[in-house]
């Protein structure tokens, strides 16, 4: 069996009929991880622990006491704290760092009998859109190893696409789940801010960060979200909103659904023709299913990227201040004074992109510049939120591309940070507004590279997004997750 062909829904039925065991599945996944080593998707693999846990879950299956995620083999983005192994955030500064505690999401997943195969590669501290900014080398796109898988959750996306795991956790601050999902041809959900506990997620930009599932189907995302969503007393910003039954909510048709198309995005500058065509064809499918296509406007979307890089980097400059060599992580052996401990440890420990963001973030918060940058950016953020509020008066969800292009070549944008930032143009506003969005495949370009569609809904509309995604997968062939293992 090739795990690249199955989603968690198939695994569940195979386990139920006894045609496969978790132990066998674990062996297959571990083999695939070996075979897929060239993708550089995993930073650490918990071989023995995974096999041990699989045997334990098999016993539970036999006794009929297995949790709802029995048979789910996960890759965990390496910025999610895990006490069973390393947590490096793709950074040299945290090389060998072992967290004494595990993130709330990991505890919940383990309680539901999910098994963690390993930690996945990422852009350092989730800063990037290509996973080239990892201190441990770039991740390669399974469909074309000369290309990037997107980022920053590129390791998770590539691992899911290549069948190295059933599904994965990513984190999304400006598109870091959705854009790599799109490049790799898998499904990725960025939940409402506050829907999933951030306790244990090493912060990049706290007001934008959100953990979410990446998988081979909308139903798999729903199963994972069901377990990780909900209030966490350890995260003061996690929502008290009750968690609905996501799977039950998926069984609906699209009749009467109002699907908004933002005129600012069709066409958008720099959008590849194949991307535009694929998303428009996707819209046609919705209409054919009985949905209504509604033109809407997001008038302030052109300010989103600039405002985002101010707010995200400002928060990052504070969030990353703790990596100073004093208590844990890398301390420069060359440091002789307190000041050298700081400057050398941080200069040697952080990569170029992280340093760029810290400097930018420090600058925009500095005395004399705060009003011009940070305050203005917060005002833009409010306007972006109002744009969405206004749009959702006339539609139930928005359909957009995830990214203007398909996966680019490794090194293609490495020297041009601004070009890299522009690849997040459709995803960033969603984080600024704190609302949920689902990315899922909707076709391929001429080179056979996956194209992703994005469904955006109001806060806590995950049930609707998953239902629409599920319907798209069922009825629209190009929307099925790709199976690649180069």
């Amino acid at each position, binding site marked *: 069996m090739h795990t690249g062909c199955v989603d968690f829904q198939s695994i569940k039925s195979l386990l139920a009929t006894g045609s496969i065991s978790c132990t066998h599945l674990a062996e297959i996944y571990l083999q695939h991880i070996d075979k897929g080593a060239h993708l550089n998707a995993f930073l650490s693999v918990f071989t023995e622990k995974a096999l041990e846990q699989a045997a334990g879950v098999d016993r539970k299956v036999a006794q009929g006491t297995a949790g709802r995620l029995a048979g789910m083999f996960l890759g965990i983005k390496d910025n999610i704290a895990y006490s069973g192994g390393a947590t490096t955030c793709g950074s040299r500064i945290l090389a060998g760092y072992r967290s*004494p505690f595990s993130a709330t999401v990991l505890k919940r997943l383990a309680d539901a009998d999910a098994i963690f195969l390993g930690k996945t590669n990422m852009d350092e501290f989730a800063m990037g859109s290509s996973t080239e900014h990892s201190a441990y080398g770039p991740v390669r796109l399974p469909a074309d190893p000369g290309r990037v898988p997107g980022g920053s959750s590129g390791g998770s996306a590539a691992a899911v696409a290549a069948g190295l795991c059933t599904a994965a956790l990513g984190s999304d601050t400006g598109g870091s789940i959705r854009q790599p999902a799109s490049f790799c041809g898998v499904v990725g959900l960025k939940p409402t801010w506050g829907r999933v506990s951030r306790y244990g997620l090493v912060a990049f930009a706290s007001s934008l960060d959100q953990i979410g599932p990446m998988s081979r189907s909308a139903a798999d995302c729903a199963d994972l979200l069901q377990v990780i969503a909900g209030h966490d007393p350890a995260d003061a910003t996690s929502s008290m909103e009750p968690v609905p039954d996501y799977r039950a909510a998926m069984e609906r048709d699209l009749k009467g659904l109002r699907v908004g198309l933002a005129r600012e995005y069709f066409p958008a500058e720099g959008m590849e023709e194949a991307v535009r065509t694929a998303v428009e064809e996707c819209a046609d499918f919705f209409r054919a299913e009985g949905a209504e296509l509604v033109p809407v406007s997001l008038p302030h979307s052109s300010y989103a990227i600039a405002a985002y890089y101010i707010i995200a980097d400002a928060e990052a400059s504070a969030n990353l201040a*703790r990596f100073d060599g004093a208590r844990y992580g890398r301390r420069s052996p060359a440091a002789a004074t307190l000041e050298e401990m700081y400057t050398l440890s941080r200069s040697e420990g952080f990569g170029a992109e992280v340093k760029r963001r810290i400097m930018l973030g420090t600058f925009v918060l500095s005395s004399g510049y705060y009003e011009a940058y940070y305050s203005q950016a917060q005002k833009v953020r409010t306007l972006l939120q109002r744009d969405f509020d206004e749009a959702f008066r006339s539609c139930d969800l928005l359909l957009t591309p995830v990214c203007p292009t398909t996966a680019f070549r490794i090194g293609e944008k490495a020297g041009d940070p601004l070009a890299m930032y522009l690849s997040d143009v459709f995803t960033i506003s969603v984080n600024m507004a704190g609302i949920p969005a689902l990315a899922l495949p909707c076709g391929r370009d001429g080179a056979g590279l996956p194209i992703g569609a994005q469904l955006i809904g109001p806060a806590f509309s995950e049930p609707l997004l998953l239902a629409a995604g599920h319907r798209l997968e069922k009825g629209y062939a190009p929307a099925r997750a790709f199976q690649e293992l180069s």
Partner: protein
Amino acid sequence: MKEAMSTGRTGLYPRGAASTAEVSTPFEVVIGLEVHIQLQTRSKIFCGCSVQFGAEANSQVCPVCMGLPGALPVLNQKVLASAARLALATGCRIDPVSLFARKNYFYPDLPKGYQISQFDLPFASGGSMTVSGEGEEERAIRIRRIHLEDDAGRSIHAEAFVGADETLLDLNRCGVPLLELVTEPDLRSPAEAADFMQRLRQLVRYLDISTGNMEEGSLRCDANISLRPAGSDTLGVKTELKNMNSFRHVERALAFEIERQGTLLAAGGRVEQQTLLWDPARNAAEPMRSKEEAHDYRYFPEPDLMPVRIGEEWIEEQRRQLPELPEARKARYERDFGLPAYDAALLTGDRGVADYFERLAGRIEDKKLASNWVMGEVLRAANASGCSVQELRMTPEHLAVLLEALSRGRIHQQAARRIFEEGMENGLSPAAAIEREEGDQIHDSGQLRAMVQETLAAHPAETEAWLGGKEKLAGFFTGKILQALQGRADPRSIMALLQDERAALLRKRG
């Protein structure tokens, strides 16, 4: 308007003596305080760790207060109640919404690389407290704001077990809840500043929100100080004084800085805006290295915490739970108990002492007697045993029985003191001891008369003076007799017998 001259007298200089010639230029002193009050909640402000003082280094820490990657703060709601008590007691307005902010700076004992504080929207603002300087009238000092924040850890450099090129960290204090109280620049002398701190200490102890101990660092104070020509409305260039670890340091450091600035200005010089560290050993303040103070804290709203929302009802609930405050209590003691202002101030100075006194005063008629005993024997006993008055084995109820017996003349002062000491030892009711002492009393006037005559004979010089008109010596003889009898007699009877004896002796001499 006060002048620098008068403030120069405090602390460093003998009172009443002008300090130096330079201060003849009339400057007005302008002082504002930033006070940090460590709250004695059970757990820290953003995690569940204990705040116990003096625990083994790094034994009261968790991922949250150590700022480990991925850990998040959650506000301890108890801290809000403490903040509300101080805000209400100082007449501050509690804002319906306040906001946490990150204050960014690098220091090894600040594990997150930022302090979680409040900046734009503090918890409360706009109150006041009264102070008085030396013999001056009471004045209101405006309070600009009260806000919440977390404390940093401790860097340990100077202990014997620390290597020459080492610094050790103790993170137990990280996350201990602090209130920062900022005054307007309304204080006009070091004495007023010290009085402000003392009253604030009294207040936080009354409110039961902090131990207010400056030496242990649970009450800390930085001062901004500047001088300006008397009568001027504009503020002069200020300096900031840090590291004043006692009320005395506050007064001395400010006096030092007034002297320094005054001398500089009088000579036509300019004050440089800087931060100075008080060195109590050298009795001088030294500028910090300019690099250390060149902070741009880059405040911005803390995204990990929601805004603090406070409802009117909750505020009223806190107001109802406020204890009677020192000023009100003092006024009540003067009014209801008829005590002199001195007694009332001393008794209400500490909430525990006042509570002890009230339990006692409620049980006996003679409130002044109760006051004398609490200010005397009770405080002496507490000081001697190093405990609080509440912990004394002589309870206010027992003391009431004793003092009632004393005021009815069943026993006498010396016997009462003896019974008090016994009660301190055994914690028993003094009733039995009173009966014993009462039974031991010598009522036989023949025996007492003989004692009087013996005592006079033993002190011929004093007797001569007494007969010659120095009537106060009667007290001296009474004392001698009571001493010999170990207090087992009524001094009033002895006095009466002494008068008889004096009359008889004078008659004899014709």
